[in-house]
Structure formats: C-alpha cells, structure tokens
C-alpha cells in the first residue's frame, strides 16, 4: 500500500509543470560566534529561569543547597556526567534527605517511572544561546531526555565557553555536526508555559515548573 502511495505521490509531483526557479540568496550560515554571559543571563531571566553564575564547578553544592533547601525536595535525578562533582551532589542529597537517583544507572522502565516521580532533574547542557537565554542538549547515551522535561524542577548546567551568540550561530554549529546528529536535540528557552485559558500566561505547563541555569566559568564583568 505504502509503496504504491509513494509511487503515485512522487510520480504526480514529478510530472507537475515546473515553475521558473527564483534565484535565492540565503544569508550565510552562522559562524558559531561566542555569546556574552550577561546577555545570556538577562535573556534567560526574561524566560522566567533562575540563573546562577559560579567560577568553579566545586561551588555547585552550595548554590544548589541554597536553592533547594527551602523547597523540601524528596528526590534528585542526575544524568551523571564526568563534568559533574557527583560526590558533592550526593552529599547535598543526603543533607536534604532526598533520594539520589543516577538516571544512567536505571533500566528504561525505571527511568521513565523515576523521572515522572522525582522532584529535580540535574543535567549538563552542551551549548547555550546568549540572545535567547537558551540551553541546548544533544541527547546521547549519557544524556537521557526525560530528566530535563519530566521533573518539576530542571537544573541545567552550561559552561560559559559553550555559550554561542544567536540561534543562527547554533544552526551553523549543528550544520557542522550534521553527520553526527543525535536522535534528539533540544533547545530549552525558559520554563514551559501556556496561555490557552483566557490568554492568561501560566508558567509551568507539562514541562518543568522551574528552570534553574548554572553558568560555570567565564569572567564576570
């Protein structure tokens, strides 16, 4: 059925009378230019994200502790990554009396269940976009998709050197990597939201209700 449909559809399209092609001059692809951290922070805050800047990754425990302590979280899911100070996050979880879950140690069904039931998801992000305050995640084996979308609080870590200037710069970067694209690539800009009832903007719809961005490194102006 499908191949017959394919033949028919493509056959008709190919037989259709061509129109004179218009010359197209596309603006050049993005160069992957670096973005300013201040611009990134401001844009992310406009998207209702909470942004912290730290000089060194070792400061992470204190920052997270300060943010999470008043929230009485009971479980923290971490997509474990070599760049993360896992021991200090485990310490923090113990201090908060929260269960520490390593997303990468679970099987598929457990990950799914845990992601929908835990309070916090901590993930490393591959890139940032300064103009829009966005985080970019290339989901690969060690960076599953659910920890950044299912838990009510998403904490995304991005390194200052990985922040690009614009979406256009990101497009250039993706194009350069097009032979090694991941199954899913996500651009996150602020918390999930809706205005579907009475045009009332409600922050936090199906995705996280809170987005915390930690920018690591980079000189503070």
């Amino acid at each position, binding site marked *: 059925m*499908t191949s017959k*449909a394919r033949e*028919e*559809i493509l056959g*008709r399209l*190919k037989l*259709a*009378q*061509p*129109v004179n*092609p218009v010359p*197209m001059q*596309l*603006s050049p692809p*993005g160069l992957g230019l670096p973005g300013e951290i201040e611009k990134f922070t401001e*844009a992310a805050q406009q*998207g209702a994200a909470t942004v912290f800047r730290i000089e060194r990754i070792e400061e992470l425990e204190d920052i997270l502790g300060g943010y999470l302590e008043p929230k009485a979280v009971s479980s923290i899911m971490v997509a474990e990554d070599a760049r993360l100070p896992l021991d200090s996050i485990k310490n923090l979880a113990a201090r908060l009396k929260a269960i520490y879950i390593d*997303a990468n140690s*679970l*099987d598929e069904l457990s*990950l*799914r*269940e845990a*992601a*929908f039931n835990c309070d916090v998801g901590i993930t490393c992000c591959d890139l940032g976009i300064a103009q829009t305050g*966005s985080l970019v995640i290339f*989901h*690969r*084996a060690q960076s*599953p*998709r*659910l920890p950044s*979308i*299912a838990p009510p609080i998403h904490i995304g870590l991005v390194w200052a050197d990985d922040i690009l200037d614009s979406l256009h710069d*990101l*497009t250039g970067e*993706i*194009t350069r990597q*097009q032979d090694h*694209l*991941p*199954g*899913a*690539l*996500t*651009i*996150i*800009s602020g*918390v*999930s939201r809706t*205005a*579907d*009832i*009475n*045009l*009332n903007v409600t922050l*936090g*719809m*199906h*995705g996280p209700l809170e987005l915390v961005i930690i920018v690591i490194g980079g000189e503070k102006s």
Partner: protein
Amino acid sequence: MIPQTERFKELARENLNNLPQRQLAGQIAILFRMLRGFAIQSYPDPAAVMQEAAQIRQRSLERLPALLEQFEQNAARAGAAVHWARDGEEANRLISRLLQDKGIKLAVKGKSMVSEETGLNHVLEEAGIEVFEGDLGEFIIQQKHMTPFHIVGPALHMPVSEISQLFVDIMGIEPTDSPEQLGRAARNYLRQKFAQAGVGITGVNVAVAETGSILLVENEGNIRLATSSPRIHIALMSIEKVVASIDEAFKVADVLIKSCTGQKISSYISMITGPRREGELDGPEELHIVLLDNGRTKIYEDPELRDVLRCIRCGACLGVCPVYTRIGGMAYGWVYSGPMGAVLNPLLLGISCTQDLFQACTQCGSCQEACPAGIKHTQMYHRYRRMLLQGNSAFKAHKASPWESLAIKIWAWTMGSRRRYKWGGLKVRFFLKIRARNGSIKSMPLMKGWFEHRDLPAPSSQTFRQWWSKQERDAGMAVNCEGGQAHDI
C-alpha cells in the same frame, strides 16, 4: 473532524451575535498583532528576513519531489520508518493498524493540525485506542468535541467557568476560576498519560531533507514528553513541510515562532533525527514518519495554486483579518480558519462547499501583507471565484447557475467598453435613485443575500465624471474625458 464549511454563514451569524466572543476575537487579534510586530522588529532587517523565509518556502516547493526523496532516504538512514499516504483515510488506517499490531491502547498527542485534518483521533478511538491531546487548548476542545477557535489558542473563546466545569466532570477537581489552577489540574491529569502511553503522536513543523530530521516547536512541553516517554513516536507530516537544509529549517522555524505567538523563541524546539540510538535509555525505539498527501499533489499540479502550499501554519493572517477578528475561528467549520482557512480549505475540501469562506473576504490584502511565506491570498480567491464561474471538477467547483453566469457575462460585456459602461452606469443610477429612501437602499429584487448584512448608500447627485467635467469647465480648461479612467456609476 467533519467539515461544516457549508454552515459558514449560519455559524458566523451565531458568533457575531455572541458579543463577548466577538470582543475576545478582536482583543486576541490586537494582542497577537502587537506581539508579532515586536518580535519581527527584533530582527536587524525584518523585511530581508521575511523575504528570505518566503524564498525558502518557494524554493522548497520548486524542488519538492527531490527534497522528499532525499528526506526519505536520510530519515531511513537515521533509523526512521517512512510511510506514504495518499489521503487522510489511508494515513489513519496505517497508523491505527500499526498501533493495533503492537497492542497499544493509550496514545498521547502533541498539537498537530494535520491529524485534525485527517480526523485521526476518531479513527483511533474506534479502534479501541484511547487518545489524549497534550496541548491544553487542544485537550479542552477535544473533550468538548469542538472545532478550534484559533490555531494558536484553540479554546481561547471558552469562559473559564465552562473549562472549570469540564475539569470537574473529567478530573473530579473542585470548581475554580483560576486559569493557573486549571492548568495545574490538566498537568497532573495528563502526566499519568504521558508516563504510561505506548505511543506519542505529533505533527511536523519543518522537515530537513539533508539530514532526515524533523523540527517541532512548542511552549507547553507536551511534544517533548510525547517524543521522550513512549516507546513509539509517530510523526504525521504533510508533504509540503520539507526544506533542503538545517539552516533553512531553523530560519523557517524562527519566523514561524515569531509570526505565531510573537515570542523571541518558543520554550522548546526539538530536532529529531531517527529513533533513540544505541545505548540511549529513553526516547522512542521506533520513529514512524507518515508523509501525507491528502490533496497536496493535486494543488501542486496547478502552478498558479501551488503557492498555497507555502503556508507554514503560523496564523499571522488571522490576527490581521477584518473578517476573522469579528467572527472567530469556529465559523470556518473546519481545522483551518481565518485567511489560512479561506485559502486552504477550498483546495482541500472543494471550492463549492467552502465558497462562503473566501466570498466573505473584503479583499483588503492585510493577510498577504502579514504572511511570512509570501502567499498572495487575494489572487487565490480570484482564482477560486473563476473556478466557480467556469466549473472545475478537480476541485469540486460546481458551475454557477445559468442566471448567475448570464449576469456575470452581461457585467463583463458592460465593463468591456467605456461607452457601454457609461450607459449602464446611468441606467443603474436611475434605478438606484428610485429605490433610495433616506439616503440609503436597503433591499433590491434578486439581491436579498447581498442586502442581508449591509445597506447601499444612495447615489450622489452627480457622478464623479460629471463633477470632474464641471471642475475643469470652471477652471476654463479644455475638457477631454475620452480615453480617461472610469470611476463612477
């Protein structure tokens, strides 16, 4: 969704009489227009960006068959299963069978207009598969069995109290007038579905031929959940969505987001290239992309109509349309409303059964000014009118009645000569003057429909031509109107 486009006049009247809804449609239009204006102006050179987007759409259509083949090849290389469907029925059957074969009983959906076009939910439900729309507005209208009010906010017309009652009935919550609490209730209710569903069904905003990827934009997170949690992802995509490169796809997506909700960027953009890769713990094990024709090749075969396929479903045309902003989306009786509906529905459903949609157009051209894809709506409407007059079996335009044809022929004959036009104008003026009462004409024989919603001002005491001649005489200049443009009747 069963089209009700033939009820346009009746539904439009209902909506016009619904004052709060009419006001709301106007307010939404102002808001979206404003937000969109700000977003577009944020480009360093807005005109150049819009022109580029229109060119990308045009160029993609020129190369459509080649791009589709390239997309198919690359999507398959990335591990996706690509299916082709000639019409909505075939697509629905294919998806339904696929899910039945896998024993799937629960489906969650990301907002997809094309699945509304094919009526997929209904078919899946008949096959015993429970379907939940994930987008809040879509979820509400799904539960109420309604057509969307607006492409961006399908349930914006619905009073909070009505949504509250709906959620009381479905979810057993306490009644509330807080949109936040209602949103939270829907979140909690649908989270269980996202966590348990066997399949996530989405549309496609843009597809990339060079990588076989699909791009999806959203704000709520329902699409990300639907494409991350279930083990199967089905993307239903109409064939015109494909562009050549990643760069082009993101350019179109960027313009789509800004034109649609007026945001600088949407909360989430997902670029999906095949199913989950080896070693990944989540994401779908199977990605099925269904390429749907449903009348597009027929449109494509006509070079004049082809440009309609440039539409990126942003809805920019809705907010600027003087008709839509007064009657709202439900009057259009199908998935696509406003100028988008008036230009698409006739080609997808048939000209005759949708003629009231484009006949209601005021020809002001605001829609085409706003359209980032460069569609010339008014030219299309003229073509549809021509099809109605001449008849067209491919697009189900039943030839006009002999009386109407005769009237139009007489009109064309009269307009074909300056002398005939002048003579005809004088006769018409004479007749109009007889009918005029208190400065206006309220009815005319054989023109009940036209006068149903408007009055015609009585003719002025002199025609423009007479007035002009007098001006020139008074100025002592030679008068020679021969060959001049005719402006009066």
